[in-house]
């Protein structure tokens, strides 16, 4: 197997002094692998992926992303963030900038790309998520599904090696979930490394190479989607699956 692109080695994290949110996480993600993380709320799923780009810091263990170990070193953090794109549950688009400006901000200010070139590349990404005609609108003028697709395009503008999705469809109206998932599935088929926290089990079956089930800060079970959904080994995963698939 090739060198893993993300490696968690006995990672521990606490919120405050007594809330142990990640317990002895061991996980390695291969290049191009597509992982879905699920589990009950409060189980540490979001915290886990937010550690990968250092939105949260871990207190024990080692976390290596694309050959760079994450620590307090600001340079290492900057380097990792260049390789990792992230899509949030609440979109987090910048409401005071147009769609196009949302996309060109980082290439122009961080990547020092000339404006014209940045805009051309941004339009390519907008076409990829099928929303190019909205480029001059402000985010609040778009529907939730459209906003989330813009957010995906914005993350893609950095040409990341890894994409993190933190419940990308949880804040959407049901009729908009599909348009966002379609875009993500398309991305998945293009070979980018992807780690996605989601409860969309159909989506997990369709794209995931591996499903990881977390509970109480631990990775309880991991398996390929087929076996995980049809034949969960752990009692807690069975319990969780019966709750979300029960009706």
């Amino acid at each position: 197997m090739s060198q893993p692109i993300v490696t968690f080695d006995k990672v521990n994290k606490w919120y405050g002094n007594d809330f142990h949110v990640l317990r002895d996480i061991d996980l390695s993600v291969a290049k191009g692998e597509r992982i879905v993380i699920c589990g009950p709320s409060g189980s540490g799923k979001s915290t886990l992926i937010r550690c990968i780009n250092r939105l949260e810091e871990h207190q024990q263990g080692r976390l290596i992303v694309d050959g760079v170990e994450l620590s307090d070193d600001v340079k290492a953090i900057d380097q990792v963030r260049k390789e990792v794109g992230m899509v949030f549950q609440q979109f987090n688009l910048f409401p005071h900038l147009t769609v196009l400006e949302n996309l060109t901000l980082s290439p122009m200010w961080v990547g020092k790309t000339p404006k014209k070139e940045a805009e051309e590349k941004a339009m390519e990404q907008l076409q990829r998520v099928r929303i190019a005609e909205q480029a001059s609108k402000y985010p609040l003028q778009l529907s939730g599904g459209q906003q989330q697709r813009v957010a995906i395009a914005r993350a893609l503008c950095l040409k990341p090696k890894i994409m993190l999705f933190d419940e990308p469809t949880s804040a959407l109206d049901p009729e908009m979930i599909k348009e966002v998932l379609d875009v993500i599935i398309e991305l998945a088929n293009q070979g980018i490394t992807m780690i996605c926290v989601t409860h969309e089990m159909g989506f997990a079956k369709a794209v995931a190479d591996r499903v990881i089930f977390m509970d109480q800060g631990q990775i309880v079970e991991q398996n390929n989607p087929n076996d995980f959904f049809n034949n969960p080994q752990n009692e807690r995963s069975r319990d969780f699956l019966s709750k979300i698939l029960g009706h």
Partner: protein
Amino acid sequence: MDAQTFQPIAPRPAPGKTEGLLPWMRSNLFGNWPTSLGTVVLGALLLWLVPQMLSWTLLRAVWVPQVEACRMDGVGACWGVVAEKYRLIIFGRYPFDEQWRPLVATVLMVSILMASCARAFWKPWLALLWLAVLGAFFTIMFGGVLGLSRIETDRWGGLPLTILLASLSIAMAFPVALLVALGRRSSMPAIRSVCTVYVELIRGVPLISVLFMASFMFPLFMPQGFTIDVLIRVLVGITLFAAAYMAEVIRGGLQAIPKGQVEAAATLGLSYWQTQRKIVLPQALAMVVPGIMNGFISTFKDTSLVTIVSLYELTGSMGLALNSDAEWRPFKIEGYLFIASLYFLFCFSMSRYSHWVEKQVNKSKLR
């Protein structure tokens, strides 16, 4: 559950006519009996007061600068006092023959202030233009070069001093306030506590005491023979005072920015200062435009307090102009009304400008 069929709502009669004067009066002035009562009472009050005011301010007013005419029985406002004393009121103790200098300096200053308000002028060279205008202002006022006689700052006064104090202290207070507001939210405890102590100290004392300290106590701490011009000390005092309040207004805006905005900026690789400049401050400041303009306007009016440290700006020079002349002293009210209208002119313009800015910055919220 029964499948419900779609049932259109039956048409309703069209609403009554709501345009035109009569329908407007009916709905706004005589809608119900408390409104009608209020309309009648207020209308009677206005009918009683307005003619008297008009008669005093205009019809029976004396416009010529003659004390005798103003002293006659039954005359109204004595605007002659303004005609007689306007140069003293507007330019204070600045030497009479040299008063073209503050006039030119003020026109320059007001022009650049107005230009700075227009979007077309928001270019890098505006800063250079500001430096040039400030240089010209001080050169013309202070003199000592180019054959201009030297006029010390304690002779400066009136409207030029008001405009100078207000615009410079506002211009300097704003960046200080930005930094203090960011500092109070810093993750570094030292910076946070320095900023907090500064804000709490300044907010804990009245402006008058800050001015006293700047003007009388500060020189005591300085080594012998070392002096800073009182105008500059007062300017710094007002700036620090205004900045503390403005910092809290801005901090209010900063608090309202969701954490996700900063996180999104971080994942895009933006540095702390890039995030503040491009993401946080534009949104935070847009939210607190009314509060900031409040601060600007009150700073403008607060400059009238510098009279107590013997700098005679507009209010002070007005007092000076009339107190020194026993003949005209009784007509202070007219004098104060005159400078009040000048203050109003400036404050109202600022307030209108603030409305315009609000509209500009809220464009992205239009659907």
